[in-house]
């Protein structure tokens, strides 16, 4: 009897060479240790609040991440911040969470962002609405982070919307996704990363890494699977403010794992702020030694003023200085 194969045809491999005009992509492809930093979005309509927040990050970061209502809390939108900063000469990472918008809105926003000069995009699932300041909101989740990645890749590389309608000028964007190596199911995280790469991820920004042994095991698997050759991995780091804050974060913010040993160390410290910064620098230096890691992503919520000191003191820039453009 005649039969047909049930296998799915492989999606076209990514194009050769640079896919965007992104500074972050250039730095990563050049084999430099990249630094990205997360901006605390203002609760205001004043553009100068955005510029003030970006200024300390721009000194060291190759790109600044504009969060998209992280933790399901309302702030200025990622696309608004990205547009403002791009025009001021910064390189930004436009974050899209699947929680708040459906496929129609998202595909339109991607074109809008690209038109305003945004060259990096980070595709996220998004935290549930329950943890935020509007728990009564309707969670959308029309896409998940992988279908979002594949959609933007289709827009960029095939030049069309998911509907098949043609895009006359496709968005040239460097595609990113998140991963959370220290969170359950730890054993399956590398496989999930492989799926994200398959969907189109070209760089990864991880959630906070406070547990180096767990992250090392994750990276060992990633290297065994050859994924470090196919995607640039930026490990997430950030200074802890105090033992109390660390405990609160661990139990209230989804997806954060802080080992007890670190919290104890914070508790014993005379100046918790300085100790948090010191721990962060140590973590960056340890992460840098792990094969397959291409950079760090600094998330210093409400401690943005420390970012530039942390990066400079960690020595990861190797004396690399920014020329011409602010923060890239």
């Amino acid at each position, binding site marked *: *009897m005649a039969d047909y194969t049930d296998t799915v045809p492989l999606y076209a491999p990514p194009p050769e060479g640079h896919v965007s005009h992104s500074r972050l992509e250039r730095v990563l492809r050049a084999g430099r240790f990249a630094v990205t930093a997360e901006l605390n979005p203002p609760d205001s309509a004043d553009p100068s609040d955005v510029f003030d927040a970006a200024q300390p990050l721009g000194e060291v970061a190759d790109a600044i991440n504009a969060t998209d209502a992280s933790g399901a809390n309302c702030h200025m939108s990622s696309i608004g911040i990205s547009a403002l900063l791009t025009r001021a000469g910064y390189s930004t990472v436009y974050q899209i969470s699947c929680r708040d918008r459906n496929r129609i809105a998202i595909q339109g926003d991607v074109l809008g962002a690209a038109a305003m000069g945004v060259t990096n995009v980070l595709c996220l*699932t*998004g935290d549930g609405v329950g943890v935020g300041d509007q728990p009564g909101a309707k969670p959308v989740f*029309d896409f998940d982070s*992988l*279908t979002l990645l594949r959609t933007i890749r289709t827009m960029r590389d095939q030049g069309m919307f998911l509907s098949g309608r043609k895009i006359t000028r496709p968005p040239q964007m460097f595609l990113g996704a998140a991963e959370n190596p220290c969170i359950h*199911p730890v054993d*399956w995280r590398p496989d999930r990363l492989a*799926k994200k790469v398959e969907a189109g991820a070209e760089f990864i920004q991880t959630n906070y890494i406070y547990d180096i042994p767990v992250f090392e095991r994750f990276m060992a698997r990633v290297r065994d699977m050859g994924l470090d050759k196919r995607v640039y991995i930026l490990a997430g780091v950030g200074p802890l403010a105090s033992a109390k804050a660390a405990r609160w974060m661990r139990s209230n913010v989804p*997806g954060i794992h802080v080992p007890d040993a670190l919290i104890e160390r914070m508790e014993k410290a005379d100046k918790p702020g300085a100790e948090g910064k010191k721990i962060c620098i140590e973590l960056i230096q340890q992460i840098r030694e792990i094969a397959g890691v291409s950079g760090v992503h600094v998330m210093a919520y409400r401690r943005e003023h420390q970012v530039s000191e942390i990066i400079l003191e960690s020595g990861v820039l190797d004396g690399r200085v920014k020329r011409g453009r602010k923060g890239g």
Partner: protein
Amino acid sequence: MYRIRLFAVRQSSVFEWIYARVERTMVALDPVFRKIGYNRVEAPVALVERAIKTVLFDCKMCGQCVLSSTGMSCPMNCPKELRNGPCGGVRPGGYCEVKPEMKCVWSLAWDGAARMKGGDKIREVLPPVDRSLKGSSSWLRVSREKAGKLREAREAARTAVAQAFPEARAIEPASAPLADEPEQAVNRDARGA
């Protein structure tokens, strides 16, 4: 139902075996369904499908079942309805970020898939949910689509004469594969003559 769902994931290989039979039966029934009309059988089949799958998997009748690609753990039970999970918010012990009393659907899915023969299908990137299919029977969709593809494959393998004269099918060796091009003709073309 939650306990039965967990049981189904633990027994994912058994349910994989059962589903393969269900699917084969549905595909075999395609001529019957076509005779009666797929739109006429839709409601009763959907009713049966909903009853069985709700008990076993907490089915939400998305109309595009992917249980065999997700370790028999229904992804529509994920509060974020992820089709390629898990998300990054899974709690210690493998509990859901949004519903802390429930095991993460996707954490279970990867474990379930590891026990299945065709478990590697979990590595494929699944498409976004087509919300317009909600409530419709996934079994009938599979039956229609697979039977259609089988027909196409069979059609492609028929002899030229059987394709040219549909009425000749009953008497011609219809299932014989198409004859290969004569070698000389192929070579002549290659030389550009």
